[in-house]
């Protein structure tokens, strides 16, 4: 072996490969950004779901003719922390608010949902006094609340040991679910996710092939020189991809249903479940809009790529981000209501589940299908617009984001006298990526260690320090990067109005659209006023209002917003910055309000031409919430009736509109 030759080839390959931004994206973007984001999202949602489940009370009916054992059972079942609410029935006497019907109709009670489970005791005269008491738990294993009730009853009674150390109760579970119902239930757990994911996967490679593949093979230029409207071209392509995705989805439904039925038969030796074919067929209604949506999205994103490889790099995170909500929806028992109706992927998964279980309703189903088709149409319009763009014929990195140049600049040292680098969208995204990695892997750990010192280090040394390093590397003055300029009086007045009204509107909207679990609200309250710790209001205000207003604004409304603004229009820049701002807060329940706030702050900074008004909005927004939380006034709003909410919302909206008008009046020009 000629080692020098090996070394030469090794170095060349490494150098060339590491200069490929697609390789860098796979190396760094996935492990450091996408996976933490996905895990964070899943953990947040699952924790919220778990909290909701734990808080739910299981309604159990107790049927026992012997008053002595009935009292003992009642006591065991209602032991503290068990989460069971018991209604009892003896010999013709009924106790409790929800007395069960006669023992013979226990099954009807459970199936109708009157009770989550029925506990029935059978007394045999010949039984020895010390023998375990025969207890039957009647439940429906295909209904999560009923299944949970059965678990709770088993936990409550299964661990009761008398002096003789044998079980007091001999528990037998009796599930009322039919084979067909069990089949539907099993399929409802796996089929929706598989169908959504496989439909997505079915669109994946065809979308790449007909967009980036066409570009790579050199046929795109020929095609675009034909007298055909771009929208027609793109619609044809999307329909082709959608058809392939549709076939994938349908084949998966059929194959998965047969596999589950056959797999269960083989495992048990006899058929233990039956496939409810009409319901399985009903899930096909989600495949058509799903195929259209995923086909459109993937064609739109594939059209941005210049090669097959780049398209794969771009689509893989999209695939993961689409897959995660579906996975979460598939794993947890969410209801198809509220915002879940319009979250792409999640809504389809939940609708398919409801169709499998026979629980689907017409109006939610129409909303899900219409919103999915609507999102698909938006993606199609975007793709058609992209095909009408000259960027499609760009052949070099320099024509696109310029990320490579910036990364090379970061690792290299600029020659003296070289001019300042103008901010780009690539730099903005890279800066966010670095900040996110630091936040996820270091800052959260610091804040768990000691909240206030950790927060100070994260914000001042982390976020502001990052902006300072960026300014140094870009050879630009920090005040220029931060856009620290003297704003006009109207802008300051407007910012004041926005800071005092924005939090009200965002709070009410968040509560109505996506109410956070109590645990999340409590953790925020504890952040403001930690139990058992005497922190002054001034320190809370400085750490939680002033510090983020300076450091987060410097990062988001300074470097990131400026970079995005060079590439995108004002509204798009504001929304993108808002989304990044929402992501950085790392809390799925607060994502929408923080993203909206971030969008508003970005608009204020761009319109006023200075970062100072957005800092003012930020400090007022956080400050008001901290003062309310500190004095325990925030809980007062929870008890208000809807009408009062509406009045407050109307007042806050008026103040917000006044603020927006004033900021517009005080408009300046931000460096572009």
């Amino acid at each position: 072996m000629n080692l020098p030759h090996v070394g030469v080839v090794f170095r060349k390959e490494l150098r060339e490969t590491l200069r490929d931004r697609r390789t860098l994206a796979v190396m760094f973007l996935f492990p450091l950004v996408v996976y933490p984001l996905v895990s964070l999202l899943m953990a947040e949602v699952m924790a919220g779901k778990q909290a909701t489940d734990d808080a739910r009370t299981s309604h159990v009916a107790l049927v026992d003719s012997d008053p002595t054992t009935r009292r003992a059972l009642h006591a065991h079942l209602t032991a503290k922390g068990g989460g069971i609410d018991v209604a009892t029935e003896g010999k013709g006497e009924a106790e409790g608010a929800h007395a069960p019907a006669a023992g013979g109709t226990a099954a009807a009670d459970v199936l109708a949902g009157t009770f989550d489970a029925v506990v029935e005791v059978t007394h045999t005269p010949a039984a020895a006094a010390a023998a375990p008491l025969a207890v039957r738990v009647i439940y429906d294993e295909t209904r999560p609340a009923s299944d949970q009730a059965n678990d709770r009853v088993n936990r409550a009674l299964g661990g009761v040991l008398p002096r003789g150390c044998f079980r007091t109760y001999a528990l037998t579970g009796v599930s009322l679910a039919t084979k067909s119902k069990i089949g539907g239930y099993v399929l409802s757990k796996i089929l929706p996710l598989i169908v959504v994911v496989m439909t997505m996967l079915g669109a994946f490679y065809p979308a790449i092939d007909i967009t980036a593949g066409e570009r790579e093979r050199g046929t795109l230029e020929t095609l675009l020189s034909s007298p055909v409207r771009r929208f027609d071209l793109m619609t044809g392509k999307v329909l082709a991809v959608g058809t392939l995705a549709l076939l994938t989805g349908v084949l998966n439904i059929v194959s998965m249903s047969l596999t589950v039925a056959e797999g269960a038969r083989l495992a048990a030796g006899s058929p233990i479940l039956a496939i409810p074919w009409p319901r399985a067929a009903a899930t096909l209604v989600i495949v058509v809009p799903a195929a259209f949506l995923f086909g459109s999205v993937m064609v739109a994103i594939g059209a941005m790529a210049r090669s097959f490889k780049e398209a794969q790099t771009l689509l893989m995170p999209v695939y993961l981000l689409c897959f995660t909500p579906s996975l979460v929806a598939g794993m947890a028992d969410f209801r198809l209501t509220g915002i879940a109706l319009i979250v792409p992927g999640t809504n389809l998964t939940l609708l398919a589940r409801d169709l499998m279980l026979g629980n689907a309703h017409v109006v939610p189903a129409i909303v899900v299908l219409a919103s999915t088709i609507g999102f698909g149409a938006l993606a199609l319009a975007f793709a058609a617009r992209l095909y009408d763009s000259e960027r499609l014929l760009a052949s070099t990195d320099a024509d696109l984001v310029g990320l490579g140049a910036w990364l090379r600049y970061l690792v290299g040292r600029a020659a003296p006298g070289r001019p300042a680098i103008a901010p780009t969208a690539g730099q903005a995204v890279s800066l966010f990526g670095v900040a996110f990695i630091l936040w996820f892997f270091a800052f959260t750990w610091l804040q768990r260690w000691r909240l206030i010192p950790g927060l100070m280090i994260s914000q001042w040394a982390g976020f502001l320090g990052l902006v300072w390093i960026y300014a140094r590397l870009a050879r630009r003055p920090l005040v220029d990067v931060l856009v620290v300029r003297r704003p006009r009086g109207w802008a300051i007045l407007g910012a004041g109005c926005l800071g005092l009204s924005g939090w009200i509107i965002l709070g009410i909207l968040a509560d109505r659209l996506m109410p956070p679990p109590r645990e999340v609200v409590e953790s925020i309250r504890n952040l403001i006023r930690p139990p058992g710790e005497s922190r002054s209001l001034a320190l809370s205000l400085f750490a939680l209002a002033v510090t983020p207003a300076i450091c987060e604004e410097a990062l988001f409304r300074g470097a990131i917003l400026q970079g995005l603004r060079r590439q995108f229009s004002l509204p798009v820049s504001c929304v993108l910055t808002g989304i990044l701002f929402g992501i950085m807060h790392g809390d799925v329940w607060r994502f929408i309000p923080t993203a909206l706030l971030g969008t508003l702050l970005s608009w204020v900074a761009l319109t006023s031409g200075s970062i100072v008004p957005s800092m003012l909005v930020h400090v007022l927004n956080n400050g008001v919430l901290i003062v309310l939380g500190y004095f325990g006034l925030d809980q007062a709003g929870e008890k208000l009736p809807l009408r009062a909410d509406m009045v407050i919302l109307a007042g806050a909206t008026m103040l917000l509109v006044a603020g927006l008008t004033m900021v517009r009046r005080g408009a300046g020009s931000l460096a572009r």
Partner: protein
Amino acid sequence: MPTRGVEGAPRFRSGSLVATATLLSSPPCMSAVTVERLKKLFGQRTAVAGLSFSVSAGEIYGLLGPNGAGKTTTLRILAGLLRPTEGVAEIADVDVGRDPREAQRRLGFMTGTTGLYGRLTGREVLAYFGALEGMSPRDVVARTAELAAVLDLGEILDRRCEALSSGQKQRISVARAVLHDPPVLILDEPTVGLDVLASRFLREYIGAERARGKAVIFSTHYLAEAELLCDRVGLLYEGKLLAEGRPPELRALAGDATSLEEAFLRLVTHLVAA
């Protein structure tokens, strides 16, 4: 009909296509292509800087210049792929900027990359682009048969394009570009990667199209090739027209240069020195 030359390569008799001209419907156009003060900026970079020229029906106009001179950008604007920043480009009296689809109906565009779908046969490619051009299936079949005879496509029409040689692909590509019989042909470096025989085939075909009254704009790096084929030549350098005229006129302009290449080098040197 084509005749066989050396090593079985197809060659044209110049009269063969002229004879078929009566079958075709495109009316001759006196000023087929007009470009006036055309300017194209990519961000801060100027790709084309106030270019003006015109091409008549029955004329081959060569757009020559080094890499980055603005040839491809100019041709892409004419083909409706890029929008001009300033100026006007017209194809057969249609403003490309205002009505790109109508202009595209009146031109055939071809590049050196052939632009064929590898998994389709030549016949399927022609059917696809014929349909996009708005031709009826019957017209596509008739025109395909006609072009198969002219371009000697008989053996290759029903094979997948990925299985064809470069020269064969280029013949299918030519058929695709002229399928709807446009009055204007725009050929962006069509001979790149072709061997000598295939290049000659293409040159002869372009010559035959001129004889049928087509206006042809032809870009190439190969100045010798342009000298053989073009009626007039525009020398592009850094987005500007350095000189324009018949090849002998350009050689004379450059002080009796022995070739177009030498004339080009002299003119560029003179410009840089000035």
